């Protein structure tokens, strides 16, 4: 394996802030997104969605719509009788369109394909669906009630990518459970000097990728082609193949640039209904969600949590008990994985004598919930860290000191049989603390908070890459990672350039087309640089060693590559191909995972306006503990993006459901951070300890900052005297809490 210091550092080589490869296309408005693609004979699809959260469908009359000029066809469940029309990568519980019953407001009931969008929209109005409303399971509490209506009767069937072991039989509306149990928990609490406990609420959140879910589907001669805004094309390919009963190789997925994802475009989303509609129409169809539709296509899980944490007089954290319930909506989506990842995050990276976690994923009659950046960690870290701070206050310890005393150190086991800690968390939190002026005087109304957490990252480590070098000495990288804005193409070009000793501009990285790009499990879980990047590195190394062999010299430089082709092939032609593969070492089971622990360390300084309850975030610090930064500027930009989303999760963002109906379904009443929310100081600290499993010791980033900042804002607000138990920290909630504290004579602290 070549080391960075052994090779010539080119313009785009590893460790340099090389400019983004896609900048010109994107700045000039030339970059194509799924909604910009026009396929010959393409129709426009629109989806009829249920207005009721839970109802029996008594009749569907499509005849008026079908007679409209310009309408090509209307799809209902009756058109899918030749299939097993259920999908879902974790649990195969979701019909392509509703069958006899709707389980959430917004569930697809039918779809129209028409010559233009306006006709399709008008046809929606002519489709008459009659419903008989059923009792609504609107909340986690209602779902868990003994006499609750059952949202999905089951038996639950595992999907293609369940990946979490044997699927237990459903208990009522609980579709999945994840438990951790270590040490003698009751004994530990019995001997504790200090115990804090509480109940906490985390809201449903909309990822708001600015590009909504968009798919163009074409079904021709047994081949299914999709141009789709999807993060995981290879998993979508397999799921579509299984659903429509064709070989995997007969499904082709082309992924143009993605207008943001953040998990909302992970796994399968609008692809099944688009394919079903195109299949019936016998013409290509485009379906592009409106924002209100994307909001009910997938979202972040709302959660209720009960937690208690124990400390002894010497300042040692002893034990933690966590019960949490995740509202996964009407269908599982990625709920089981979110629940398991949250379970892993729940104890926090401390040296416990005992902990017990019981995390349950619960069906309700609300929109399905799945992945959103830093899922699990964002849900639990703010709660655990609030309790650590409260215990520190009980014991008279500084929040930084209690963390120094109790955080695990590199190599320590975090979870039985799992990957040991691969990061210096104490060093990380010390840096974050310093960046926000920890220990210096605070003006009145100001609070400072720290937060430390870990996120099981990397997903399943299966990725391949191919590097092709042409006779002019330029190289093309084929890799299945989608460019979702993270800068994957830039980073892969840098890695290949490094290994091939080429200037980065002589390396091209193409977009994903499953017909040509080799398999990459997914683009998510901060895995691309670490896992796919390693595959790219290995593929480039193979080409480089062929060049070295032809040259008979390890020092051969890129200006002599063309003559090597002539020497080897006898003409200025031929091609050198390198293949890189990453596969699990060991059994590859989740129990042995994760690929790496993503560090979620941050700090914040806030001010609170006592009269209005408004929280303002003045300073933030995040730590990108990335092992090695292939492109430091892109690392910083990832952390900054996560920081603002963390502010949104902490302060503003909440999908408000009432009896299963989403009340704030536009960007006017669903508030995301704007330019004016940018903190005065935003510090991103890059830590490079070369302790990652990826190329050059790299490990992923970009999610940790979201969990870290959400938690640091919560601990900072508590530090200012307002301990909160429900996010987001809206002015109304904070103000009401201050009034309660005043009544208890606990304000000002």
């Amino acid at each position: 394996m070549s080391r960075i210091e052994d090779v010539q550092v080119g313009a785009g080589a590893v460790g340099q802030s090389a400019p983004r490869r896609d900048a010109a296309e994107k700045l000039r408005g030339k970059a194509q997104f799924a909604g910009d693609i026009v396929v010959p004979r393409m129709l426009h699809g629109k989806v009829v969605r249920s207005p009721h959260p839970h109802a029996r469908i008594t009749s569907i009359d499509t005849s008026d719509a079908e007679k409209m000029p310009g309408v090509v066809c209307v799809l209902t469940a009756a058109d899918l009788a030749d299939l097993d029309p259920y999908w879902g990568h974790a649990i195969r519980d979701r019909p392509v369109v509703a069958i006899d019953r709707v389980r959430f407001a917004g569930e697809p009931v039918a779809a129209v394909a028409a010559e233009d969008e306006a006709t399709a929209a008008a046809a929606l109005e002519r489709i008459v669906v009659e419903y008989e409303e059923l009792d609504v399971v609107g909340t986690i509490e209602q779902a868990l009630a003994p006499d609750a209506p059952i949202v999905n009767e089951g038996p639950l069937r595992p999907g293609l990518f369940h990946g979490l072991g044997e699927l237990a039989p459903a208990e009522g509306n609980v579709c999945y459970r994840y438990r951790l149990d270590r040490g003698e928990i009751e004994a530990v609490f019995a001997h504790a000097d200090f115990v804090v406990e509480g109940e906490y609420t985390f809201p449903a959140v909309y990822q708001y990728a600015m590009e909504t879910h968009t798919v163009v589907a074409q079904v021709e001669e047994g081949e299914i082609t999709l141009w789709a805004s999807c993060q995981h094309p290879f998993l979508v390919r397999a799921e579509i193949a299984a659903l429509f009963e064709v070989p995997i190789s007969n499904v082709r997925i082309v992924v143009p640039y993605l207008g943001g994802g953040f998990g909302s475009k992970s796994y399968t989303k609008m692809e099944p209904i688009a394919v079903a509609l195109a299949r019936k129409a016998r013409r290509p169809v485009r379906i592009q969600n409106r924002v209100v539709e994307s909001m009910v296509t997938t979202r972040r899980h709302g959660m209720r949590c009960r937690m208690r944490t124990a400390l002894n007089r010497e300042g040692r954290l002893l034990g933690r008990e966590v019960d949490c319930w995740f509202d996964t909506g009407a269908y599982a989506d990625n709920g089981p994985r979110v629940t398991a990842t949250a379970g892993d995050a729940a104890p926090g990276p401390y040296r416990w004598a005992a902990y017990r976690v019981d995390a349950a994923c619960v069906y309700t009659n609300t929109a399905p919930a799945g992945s959103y950046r830093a899922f699990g960690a964002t849900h639990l870290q703010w709660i655990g860290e609030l309790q650590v701070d409260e215990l520190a206050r009980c014991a008279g310890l500084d929040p930084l000191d209690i963390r120094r005393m109790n955080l695990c150190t590199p190599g320590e086991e975090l979870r039985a049989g799992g990957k040991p800690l691969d990061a210096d968390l104490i060093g990380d939190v010390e840096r974050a603390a310093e960046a926000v002026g920890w220990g210096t005087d605070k003006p009145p109304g100001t609070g400072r908070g720290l937060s430390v957490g870990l996120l099981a990252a990397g997903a399943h480590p299966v990725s391949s890459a191919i590097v092709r070098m042409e006779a002019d000495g330029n190289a093309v990288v084929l890799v299945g990672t989608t460019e979702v804005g993270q800068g994957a193409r830039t980073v892969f070009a840098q890695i290949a350039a490094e290994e091939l000793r080429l200037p980065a501009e002589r390396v091209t990285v193409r977009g994903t087309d499953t017909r040509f790009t080799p398999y990459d499990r997914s683009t998510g879980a901060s895995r691309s640089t670490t896992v796919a990047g390693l595959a790219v590195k290995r593929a480039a190394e193979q080409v480089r060693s062929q060049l070295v062999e032809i040259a008979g010299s390890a020092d051969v430089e890129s200006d002599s590559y063309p003559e090597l082709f002539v020497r080897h092939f006898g003409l200025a032609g031929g091609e050198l191909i390198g293949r890189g593969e990453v596969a699990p070492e060991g059994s590859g089971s989740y129990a042995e995972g994760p690929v790496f622990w993503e560090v979620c360390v941050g700090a914040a300084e806030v001010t609170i306006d006592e009269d209005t309850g408004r929280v303002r975030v003045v300073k933030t610090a995040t730590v990108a503990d990335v092992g090695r930064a292939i492109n430091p500027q892109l690392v910083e930009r990832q952390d900054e993006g996560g920081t603002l989303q963390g502010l949104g999760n902490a302060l503003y963002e909440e999908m408000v459901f009432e009896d299963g109906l989403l009340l704030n379904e536009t960007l006017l009443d669903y508030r995301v951070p704007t330019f004016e929310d940018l903190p005065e100081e935003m510090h991103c600290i890059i830590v490079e300890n070369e302790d990652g499993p990826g190329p050059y010791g790299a490990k992923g980033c970009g999610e940790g900052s979201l969990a870290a900042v959400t938690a640091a804002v919560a601990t900072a607000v508590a530090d200012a005297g307002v301990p909160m138990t429900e996010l987001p920290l809206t002015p109304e909630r904070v103000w009401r809490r201050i009034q309660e504290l005043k009544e208890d004579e606990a304000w000002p602290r």
Partner: protein
Amino acid sequence: MRLELWVNGSAVVSEVEPQELLLDFLRDRLGLTGAKRSCDVQACGVCTVLVDGRPVSSCCFLAADAAGREVLTIEGLAERPEFERLESAFTHHAALQCGFCTPGMLLTVAALLETGELTSVEEIKRGLAGNLCRCTGYRGILEAVCDLAGVTP
């Protein structure tokens, strides 16, 4: 109805529906897909184009209301000599990620640079508050615009 207007410096004559949105007119009839669709309620800014030099949300602006006026889209801005500065600043500061908000952001920045109102960090934040970006956290964009406006970040 018949619509006559200027788009990116060229005269355009077209049939449009009376209720047709400028965004659909640009994207579907003229193939100018640099303007994007997202929120549909004038909250996000990805559909921003300039009409007579002022930013408008083309998702909430009738094509018919652009009659006789000059519309500038990202495709037109990219052809102008001053675009090079914008491109260079945004590239240097990595002031973009997914790129979906980028055309609207650049058009707003271009319009505000033209009027000279970007005189401080606060003005920049206020001026760009109608253009959402979910990826970058705004920091890179702020740095790029500070460079362009000659403001110390």
